[in-house]
């Protein structure tokens, strides 16, 4: 089964415990990959990408020919304040 995914939206946030969270929402609206609890923002993003791109689980895997556009991380939420990266 192949799917055409046209948009992937990143959301990156710093949690109140100081760790980083990253979610990637697929364009079909029904699939979500993410990472949480990372000390570095970069590692959270990399982990979320890894879940998305290299997961061994068919339900999340992208296939050859799938089309997608990665939207840049939308916002960083740092202890209640919001700023764009």
């Amino acid at each position, binding site marked *: 089964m192949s799917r055409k995914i046209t948009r992937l939206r990143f959301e990156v946030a710093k949690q109140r415990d100081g*760790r*980083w969270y990253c*979610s990637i929402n697929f364009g*079909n*609206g*029904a*699939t*979500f*990959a*993410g*990472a*949480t*609890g*990372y*000390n570095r923002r970069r*590692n*959270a993003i990399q*982990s*979320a990408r*890894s*879940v998305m791109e290299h*997961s061994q*689980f068919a*339900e*999340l895997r992208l296939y050859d020919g799938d089309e997608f556009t990665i939207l840049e991380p939308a916002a960083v939420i740092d202890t209640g304040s919001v700023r764009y990266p």
Partner: protein
Amino acid sequence: MAHIVADWIKETASNKPDGSTAFNLPDTGYTGGYGSFDSVLATGDTCFYTATNTVARETGLGTFTAGSPDTLTRTTILSSSTGSAIDWSSGGDVTVELVDPARQVGQSWLAHVAGTDADTTMVANHMYVVDMSAWATADRTYTLPAAAVAGDRVGIMVTAGDASHELIITANTGDTLNGISGGTEWSRLFITGEVVIMRCTADAATWIVEYDGRIPCFMMLRTTNATSGTQTGGTFYAPTATTGSHGAATWTAEVNIGSAGTTADGRFTARRANNGLIVTAKGTTANALTDGNYAAVFAWNGTTSYVTSQISVGGTAVVPNFAGAGTFPPQAVGAYAELIYRTQESNKYLAGGAFFGVKEILN
């Protein structure tokens, strides 16, 4: 060119038309204070009329034309004493009166009749008012009438629904309802307050749903305790162990409109064919995961996942939250949606408070 309804309009025609000719109306009201057709109708207006010469009778839809004399063209014959248009030429004088035909009144009014716990062939121009709460043994099929004429209507109103049985609606053999052939169900009713009104648009052939007052099923289930038992890493489980073998959590229903949700198995089961579902699924592990490992919650139909949420954790002692929302494709009666979950490590479990929400998209 309006359709005119009025009281006390009656005249004696100045001709005795054959079966296809218009009535000539002298613009003189009938004895006893009746008014003339010309007093309420203009050229192009329509009205229902009934005509009699004391022997033959005819009722139909007439189209008025002002002139000398005024005429009322017999546009559509609804009924007559012979079953077809009357040839008035050999009888006495013909009186013509503006009326509301009985059938027309019935179509507008929908006579109240109680629907019963039995398969029913419905009668045109009735509203079946159904208390399903005492339906004891089976689904019941309500079939539209076969010998309907265009304009006939039938309604069904559920005053009390039922959690186990459904009222199935279908057209009669050879007819269609919203394009669905008789004998094949259009849909089902079972929720208190559901109302459907159907209108015949072609004689003895075609019905269309004029008013669709079905209520979408909607459920919100939540677990009250964590799962337990032996949980193998990477394996899918349902919180109630309908999938997998570890100990069961308990589902409670916060909302369950239409009783499609069942707490025993945590599933939404379609009680009527639908155009799909809107689904949300949320979970949290009961125990912290270690570095790089994942947890996931899915919503599936037993074969395919349509909502997927998977999250990996960094560092130690992280309890991830994961939630997804999406749509399911159309379901047949009996198809289900179910929340399942897994964790990369064994025995991390799904914490109490997992949530599964489903709303039906009506077909």
